[in-house]
């Protein structure tokens, strides 16, 4: 059986789409995401004690089905659950795969290292084969197949609930989420100070977007780390990323690869990020960003 773990996030639908290349896929669905049109058979996990996320319980549900191939989204939970599956049975786990094909008994795969700034071609043998799919490696696309959904209740004991979510803190109302924002206004060292971000905030607000930043600005305490874009921060996929005073180090670029378009504001025409941009304004962001804000206001935005 080829099993795909499905959580309540869009990356799970990408993973489902990816998994179909191995053959007929069954979805193991945690939560209430709709997988209609993606797979012929979906099992919705139903368990009295699984009202909240519990990594080893999820891993046990996967193991109980004795799959030959397991695909999961390359998210915090996808990586965590598959690492537990892998550790339990002593099998390897290939994380952040972007391409794979079956070659007799083996899988030939390409996976991301260094957050995606380097790729590794590898060969995975043995059973089961475990892999996570890197976010935004492919688009989610239903195949149009008719999906039957059934309930599945794994056999779980106390030992599977040693670690679980005890409570949650919801985001403050109205906070724009970086990873799903349509527009991200990013600031780097060039912004110069914590206060310098006020005008970036304003621009983001006018465009209905979120503010992000480089590691330099989170390390300097100008922005909280949750705003960081890059290898050790968030992966963004907006329609437009506006990068202000960001040089475009490889570790930053891997975080904004999912952006459809990039507009750069930088005083250095040779900054690496300019070569990745669709549009650039060369000059001092402290003059340019306020001018853009003023122009938007003039246009009644």
């Amino acid at each position, binding site marked *: 059986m080829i099993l795909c773990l499905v959580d309540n996030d869009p990356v799970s639908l990408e993973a489902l789409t990816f998994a179909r290349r191995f053959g007929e896929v069954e979805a193991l669905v945690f939560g209430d995401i709709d997988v209609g049109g993606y797979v012929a058979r979906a099992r919705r996990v139903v368990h009295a004690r699984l009202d909240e996320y519990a990594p080893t319980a999820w891993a046990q549900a996967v193991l109980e089905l004795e799959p030959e191939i397991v695909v999961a989204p390359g998210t*915090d939970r996808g*990586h965590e659950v598959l690492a537990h599956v892998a550790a339990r049975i002593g099998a*390897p786990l290939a994380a952040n795969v972007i391409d794979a094909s079956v070659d007799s008994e083996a899988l030939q795969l390409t996976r991301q290292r*260094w957050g995606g700034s380097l790729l590794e071609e590898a060969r995975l043998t043995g059973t089961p084969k475990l892999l996570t799919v890197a976010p935004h490696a492919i688009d989610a696309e239903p195949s149009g197949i008719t999906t039957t959904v059934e309930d599945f209740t794994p056999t779980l004991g106390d030992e599977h609930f040693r670690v679980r979510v005890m*409570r949650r803190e919801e985001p403050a109302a109205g906070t724009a989420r970086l990873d799903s924002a349509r527009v991200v206004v990013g600031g780097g060292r060039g912004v110069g100070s914590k206060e310098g971000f006020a005008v970036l905030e304003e621009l983001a607000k006018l465009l209905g977007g979120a503010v992000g930043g480089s590691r330099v600005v989170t390390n300097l305490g100008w922005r909280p780390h949750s705003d960081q874009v890059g290898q050790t921060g968030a992966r963004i996929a907006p329609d437009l990323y506006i990068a202000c005073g960001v040089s475009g180090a490889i570790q930053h670029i891997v975080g904004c690869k999912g952006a459809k378009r990039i507009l750069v504001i930088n005083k250095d025409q040779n900054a690496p990020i300019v*070569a990745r941009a*669709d549009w650039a304004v060369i*000059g001092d962001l402290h003059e340019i960003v306020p001018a853009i804000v003023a122009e938007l206001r003039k246009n009644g935005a």
Partner: protein
Amino acid sequence: MKVGVCVKRVPETGARITLTSDDQAIDTSLLGFTISPHEECAVEEALRIAERHGGSTTVLTLGPAAASEQLKNAMAMGIASAVLLETDGGDWSAEATAAALAEAMRAQPEPFDLLLFGNEAADSGDYQVGVRVAHTLGLPCVTGIKGIEIDDGRLTARREAGGGWEIFELPLPAVVTVKEGINLPRYASIQGRLRAKKTPIERIQPQPRASALETIRLVVPPEHETHVEVLGAGADAAQRVVAVFRELGLVGL
């Protein structure tokens, strides 16, 4: 409280990564070495926990003899002792790394109460060594943590999720993998550097083992060089920028 922290020596890559001619490794001839930002934060968190709750700290690494540089750096920040699992420098799989680390931890005269890891290593990005060590040692484990509190033998861990937070509770001893943002790491002091220089490193010869995930070669991904349209230099470009917003449907016509 005895806290252990695991770090990995990785090259400090610049704006472009260059490979060796056989495509098996990064060409490090011109590069310095470091550890992942996540692991710097794990080291800092170990120090803060030991400062708050009392106890000792140990840093462990599996790598070549040169990885003693990363151990010394952690000791310069304040970690008390260090263990080097010395290899010939080749890449070890996540399974082999975890097995060797777990064995070294077991061999310690006193067991660890808390083991901290990075969420993922900067180079391999395998997202699993911490979880594997937890299983081998039979400890509870949680990953991707950006906040730790310890009270009365229980650990509360915070993970960012959907813009909010998921809060886990674990009994100690436990394994926690952390992400950058949990703290801002301190700099090493001069006294710290002097002390680190003098502190001996415990050395272990770990046993390698094969993995069913075999690297064939590394590939530098093709760069998406875009065609850049320069909209102007300075504030007078604002009109053209807004025209782009309009074209993308981000603002009304």
